[in-house]
């Protein structure tokens, strides 16, 4: 079993994807192992909630297993999976935005220096942005995608993407202003 596991772990991704597409569960488990950190972080940045992010990621992988036979180009597994994750997120937002908007806003955000605290503050701040805005921000800052690529992936108009990124950045800066002050102090010293 371990030799077999090593075989999957060492195999190039297109080969592992091909095997998974033929119904090989071990190959798919390897794909989950390889891609889960990325998808879970993407979902966490979008949702601002680690538990919800894990649930969504699980849904994404289950959907990927159901549809992997339809994937024509095994080299595009990553972007195919990302598209699926974005769709999952948009679907959830469509259901939940009305509820969340009614909850009102919270104020957060301290200025911490360790990675965990920055991540948590970022998650809290992101959770206060409307769905499509937070998605555009995550794709722009976390995934390093251009506005054109975001528009293509999400199906939003380019102008809308630009406006979401601008609006979201502005709001995030306000929410994370404590970090701005910390940076200014660091720069001064």
């Amino acid at each position, binding site marked *: 079993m371990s030799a077999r596991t090593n075989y999957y772990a060492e195999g190039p991704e297109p080969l592992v994807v091909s095997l998974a597409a033929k119904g090989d*569960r071990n190959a*798919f488990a390897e794909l989950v192992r*390889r891609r889960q950190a990325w998808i879970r972080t993407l979902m966490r940045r979008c949702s601002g909630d680690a538990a919800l992010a894990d649930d969504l990621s699980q849904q994404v992988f289950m959907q990927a297993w159901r549809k992997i036979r339809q994937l024509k180009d095994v080299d595009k597994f990553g972007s195919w999976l990302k598209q699926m994750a974005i769709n999952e997120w948009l679907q959830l937002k469509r259901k939940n935005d009305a509820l969340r908007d009614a909850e009102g806003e919270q104020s957060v955000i301290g200025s911490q220096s360790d990675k965990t605290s920055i*991540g948590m503050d*970022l998650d809290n701040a992101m959770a206060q942005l409307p769905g499509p805005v937070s998605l555009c921000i995550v794709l722009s800052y976390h995934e390093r995608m*251009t506005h054109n690529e975001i528009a293509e992936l999400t199906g939003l108009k380019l102008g809308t993407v630009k406006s979401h990124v601008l609006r979201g950045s502005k709001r995030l800066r306000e929410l994370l202003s404590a970090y701005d002050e910390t940076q200014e102090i660091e720069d001064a010293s």
Partner: protein
Amino acid sequence: MSDERDPLLDSLFAEAENEQTDDEFTAKVMLSIEKRRRNIITGRIGIVGLLFALEFLLSAPLQNSVGVLANTLSMSLIPIQSEWLAAAFAPLNSIAGLIGMLLLGLHTLHRRMVR
């Protein structure tokens, strides 16, 4: 606006902690996939079982109903003594023929009204 990013947010996103690979998560996903597969198999077995049960329960009444319906539809409207004449006029001289002509008439009427 170009694709420029805010430097502060850029650095925060870069510094924020990312999720790590977690074998438990992989196991959870694979377990859910297995559960779903079992549910699908159970569902299919259930449907096949249900079809068999329906076949067993309803085959006799259904066959009877079909027989009665066939007899009723082929019943002659006007009794004809000659066997070959009765066979030749059967498509018209039967309840089925009457229903057919009624439907044809309604269809023609509908087309005229629509035009």
